[in-house]
């Protein structure tokens, strides 16, 4: 009895203790992300622009045009009114710029509607070319050309210049992957380029206008980005050289660097794109002198407008300003000009000024009126005086297009986007000659920006609502290269942001960063920012509320828009549609091969599995004559740890799966021919003794010393290979071989993506978002490429001249870069590691050891994966 009583008491005590244990151990609630004090990012809508779109027929060709006007309150599309001489219903002027808007949107979102609309508008532009590179501007409702009106006559004027801008952008956006969309446009473009060359060679501005010439130059530079040619570069340089001497006055003398159409002419805000064009030319043509020229107007005249707190509509040569009407077409060139100069100089001051200038559209104007309506995408036609009653609430094509052009640029720049909702304080100045010494702007979070005029230059000083300095903790990966990179970036940031310091602490030691971060989450010891978050961990982090959503924060949303396309983000969205980690760097897995060994064997890099098997046979050799192979075609790792499959099964699978990954939306996707053929090709290699069934010694690499001729690897390996390789080893990379039946156009590489996350434990989500935007800026990306031989997850990386020199730093890196947009990563699924382990088992049993038929092994793995999915 006593023993029984003791046992019962002991059990009760044990049970009580066990339950009590749970409380401190794991009874915590999930984290809740901190709230941002900033408003959400501005949303761009094209609804109104679409509403202005009309079908038309020009010379029998179906095209799309944009109606010129839309009067309040019903905003029906309409043509030119009597006061303008019934010019017509639509113009090249507007259609061309609308095409640029749609092309930019298409580039980012991949939305076919935008691509189709841009293509149809470009067709209209080309149809208005008259066979000699000159253009007519207007058509009427029946598609008849207006050849009489001065604003429409056949000429090489504004409309031709805008046509060149649009066609150049069309080639840049469509040229790489969808050149068929350019069918029928190339002829007009070629003639226009030739005609422009004659005009420029004669030393004449297009249409006698700095504006028209600048817009044509923008088109020429877009063409040069897409299809570089020495003759085109020379033409662009000569065009820019025509613009440089147009600047009049100086920083202290009116009209303060303004670029005028002719000596003695007044400067007009509308279309003042020469600074943007020159700054772009400086980058594309690598001519820093053009950047200096671009700053002449921006640093003097525009700086004075910023201090005045409003933009002059017109400035006479003696500096007298006419303030109204203020229109989007007068603001947009300044916004884009500042951004182009920011890109050229790398000075974030210009991005801040672009954001503050763009705030005109959100109410930072003399009328205090919101000029761009987020709900409808309308932009009002202008402000005729300093009160809300003097806002022209019509919403024509030009205002709508120009507002969208400005906002597209600002919302893609993290430094600029933060200031879009700032307002200027104090009364606007009424003279550009007599200026206040400072002008303050304030944001919705209470933050302030002060512009000060000091020694003939504008200073930008920012103060936060709370003046306490912030320190962020940043965990980069612990490897020496990435730690060094992080230290350099943080040091640069700390120098420029004394109010927001960053402390770098490499990820604490552990088997993998996933386990370290997980342990940190459990202990509530996560940093503010970490840059080594894998997709394998992300789904769990999000489920636990452990990370902050990034497309809701202005700086990171802007960086996402600037850096990626919708297609690149599609597979990185969580079920709620959110992006919770900034896709930072990628190492697309490709087939690295020894050029000399393949040449000696008389084979080219294998493109499909048949060729791969042939390579297995041709590249296996017995060099010491002992009857056993000691040189092989490929080394496929034998270990079954889940991430080993990144170097064999998974890249081979993605090359043939048509973009399908392993699991998506709870559906198991890999029970298919692509998975079977990926394992089968290796099984045949192992079964025939053509692949080494061996682990090579640690510290050596069989590819670097020529033991194997091929290896599936990402570009992170390049520095290591350069150190390890035997002298004289020549290597190159090729896409991963696909199955014989797979469509070559449907091949994807494994991304091996690493992302940057902001953890919910941070007290400063907005500050952290700014830092993350900085870590993924073009300058930081260049450093990533040069220091770590790894690639930013960036749109059109291989074709972007900003990265050409950096990519050339490492052999074959440019080839890797060409695959950045054709990648798939791990699924954002909480059980992806376990599913990879199942596949690893199938690969081992079916592929390496052949103890189970491959198809059966894949089917078993898929069945078990379904059980895992069903159990949750």
């Amino acid at each position, binding site marked *: 009895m006593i023993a029984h009583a003791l046992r019962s008491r002991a059990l009760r005590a044990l049970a009580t203790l066990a339950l009590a244990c*749970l409380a401190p151990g794991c*009874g915590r609630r999930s984290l809740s992300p901190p709230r941002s004090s900033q408003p959400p990012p501005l949303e761009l809508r094209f609804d109104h622009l679409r509403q202005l779109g009309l079908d038309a027929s020009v010379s029998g060709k179906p095209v799309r045009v944009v109606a010129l006007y839309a009067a309040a309150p019903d905003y029906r599309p309409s043509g030119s009114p009597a006061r303008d001489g019934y010019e017509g219903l639509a113009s090249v002027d507007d259609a061309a710029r609308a095409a640029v808007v749609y092309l930019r949107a298409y580039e980012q979102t991949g939305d076919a509607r935008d691509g189709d609309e841009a293509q149809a508008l470009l067709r209209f532009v080309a149809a208005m070319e008259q066979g000699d590179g000159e253009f007519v501007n207007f058509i009427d409702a029946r598609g008849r050309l207006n050849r009489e009106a001065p604003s429409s006559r056949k000429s090489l004027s504004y409309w031709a210049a805008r046509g060149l801008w649009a066609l150049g952008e069309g080639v840049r956006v469509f040229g790489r992957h969808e050149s068929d969309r350019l069918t029928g446009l190339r002829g007009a473009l070629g003639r226009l380029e030739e005609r422009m060359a004659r005009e420029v060679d004669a030393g004449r501005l297009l249409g006698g206008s700095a504006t028209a010439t600048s817009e044509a130059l923008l088109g020429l530079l877009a063409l040069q980005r897409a299809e570089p040619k020495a003759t085109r570069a020379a033409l662009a340089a000569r065009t820019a050289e025509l613009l440089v001497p147009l600047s009049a006055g100086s920083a202290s003398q009116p009209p303060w660097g303004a670029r005028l159409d002719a000596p003695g002419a007044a400067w007009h805000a509308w279309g003042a794109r020469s600074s943007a064009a020159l700054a772009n030319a400086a980058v594309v043509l690598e001519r820093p002198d053009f950047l200096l020229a671009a700053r002449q107007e921006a640093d003097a005249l525009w700086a004075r407008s910023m201090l005045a707190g409003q933009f002059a509509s017109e400035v006479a040569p003696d500096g007298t300003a006419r303030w109204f009407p203020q229109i989007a077409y007068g603001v947009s060139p300044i916004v884009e000009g500042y951004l182009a100069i920011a890109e050229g100089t790398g000075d974030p001051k210009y991005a801040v000024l672009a954001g503050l200038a763009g705030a005109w559209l959100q109410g930072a104007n003399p009328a205090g009126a919101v000029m761009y309506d987020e709900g409808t995408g309308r932009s009002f036609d202008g402000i005729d005086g300093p009160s809300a009653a003097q806002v022209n609430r019509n919403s024509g094509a030009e205002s709508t297009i120009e507002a969208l052009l400005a906002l597209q640029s600002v919302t893609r720049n993290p430094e600029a986007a933060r200031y879009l909702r700032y307002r200027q304080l104090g009364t606007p100045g009424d003279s550009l000659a007599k200026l206040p010494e400072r002008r303050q702007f304030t944001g919705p979070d209470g933050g302030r920006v002060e512009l000060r005029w000091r020694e003939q230059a504008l200073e930008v000083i920012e103060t936060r609502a709370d003046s306490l300095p912030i320190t962020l903790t940043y965990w980069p990966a612990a490897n020496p290269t990435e730690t060094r990179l992080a230290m350099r970036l943080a040091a640069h940031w700390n120098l420029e942001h004394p109010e927001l310091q960053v402390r770098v602490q490499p990820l604490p030691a552990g088997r993998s960063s996933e386990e370290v971060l997980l342990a940190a989450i459990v202990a509530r010891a996560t940093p503010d920012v970490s840059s080594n978050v894998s997709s394998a961990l992300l789904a769990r982090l999000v489920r*636990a509320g452990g990370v902050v959503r990034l497309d809701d924060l202005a700086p990171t949303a802007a960086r996402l828009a600037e850096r990626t396309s919708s297609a690149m983000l599609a597979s990185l969205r969580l079920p709620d549609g959110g992006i919770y980690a900034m896709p930072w760097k990628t190492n697309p897995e490709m087939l690295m091969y020894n050029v000399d060994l393949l040449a000696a064997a008389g084979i080219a890099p294998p493109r499909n599995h048949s060729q791969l098997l042939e390579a297995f046979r041709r590249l296996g050799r017995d060099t010491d004559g002992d009857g056993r192979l*000691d040189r092989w075609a490929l080394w496929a790792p034998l270990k*079954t740890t889940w991430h080993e499959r990144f170097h064999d099964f998974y890249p081979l699978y993605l090359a043939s799966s048509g973009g399908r990954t392993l699991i998506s939306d709870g559906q198991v996707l890999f029970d298919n021919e692509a998975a079977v053929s990926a394992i089968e090709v290796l099984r045949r290699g192992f079964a025939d003794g053509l692949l080494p*069934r*061996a682990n090579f010694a640690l510290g050596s690499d069989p590819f670097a010393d020529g033991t194997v001729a091929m290896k599936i690897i990402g570009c992170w390996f390049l520095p290591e290979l350069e150190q390890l390789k035997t002298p004289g080893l020549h290597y190159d990379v090729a896409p991963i071989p696909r199955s014989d039946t797979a469509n070559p156009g449907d091949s994807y590489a494994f991304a091996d993506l690493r992302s940057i996350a902001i953890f919910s434990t941070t007290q400063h989500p907005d500050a952290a978002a700014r830092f993350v935007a900085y870590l993924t800026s073009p300058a930081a990306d260049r450093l990533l490429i040069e220091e770590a031989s790894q690639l930013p997850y960036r749109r059109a990386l291989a074709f972007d001249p900003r990265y050409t020199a950096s990519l050339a730093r490492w052999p074959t890196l440019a080839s890797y870069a060409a695959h950045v947009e054709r990648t798939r990563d791990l699924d954002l699924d909480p059980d992806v590691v376990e599913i990879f382990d199942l596949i690893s088992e199938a690969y*081992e*049993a079916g592929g390496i050891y052949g103890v189970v038929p491959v198809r059966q092994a894949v089917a078993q793995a898929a069945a078990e994966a379904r059980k895992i999915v069903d159990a949750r």
Partner: protein
Amino acid sequence: MRAEDRSGWLLSAPYAAFLLVFAAYPVCFALALVFMHWDLVRAPSFAGFDNVRLLATDTRFWRAVLNTFVFLGIHLPLQIATALTLALALNRPLVFRAFWRAAFFLPVVISGAVVAILWNALYATDVGLINGLLARAGVAPVPWLTDPSLAMPAIAVMVTWKNVGFYVVIYLAGLQYIPRSCQEAIAVEGASAWQRLRHLTLPLLLPQTILVVTLSTINGFQLFIEPYVMTGGGPLRRTFSIVLYMYTNAFSYQKMGYAATIGVALALIIGLVVAIQRRVIGKAEVQ
């Protein structure tokens, strides 16, 4: 409470606190987790007997149990034989005896991960030292860690090498206690060296053997770092030990409840096996 009692409680309190925090709490925590689903990052949910049912039908778990017994089947006899042989050798007059004793003990104090990395290189098929030596003798390279039938024996040999120094010390201590008079008496009786070993030394070393068997068994069941570093559990899961499977569930799959269930099952298996061993060897001791 008497002053004597108070002093007693006071003196035992630090250790009791240590025991509660670092032994009782984890044990109770693990027991509670058996009935929970918990992925570390979210609050746990009640699982009833789900984890236990899963364990009973989980072929991977039972494969791990089998692997661990295979390991023990190779490791235990090898460990005892090697330790005893070395102890007998080191107990004799020997040049540099202290050096040899220290040398055999050295692997015990080296980190398991370091030893595993070292042996990984020794076992490497292409350029490993062992295959290099075999090649000189004209033997083809042996895939030590990539052949499903050789991987676990290879690991068992390595673990034996690492731990043998510790058990040598135990045997050496036992050998010191065998009375010289007994050894002399049996030698005078004309017993051969083998007979002296069989009928005197081994019976008198039985307590040490029991200790060696018990400790080796407990350590052997906890086989983890070697397969973790060297094989990742392969080939064909032949080196997936119980602890490696527990670790994988806990920290790769974040299935803490199931991992705790494996841990509790492991504790029960160890208890059962050690109890059987003690009963079997204990009988021999009585005889």
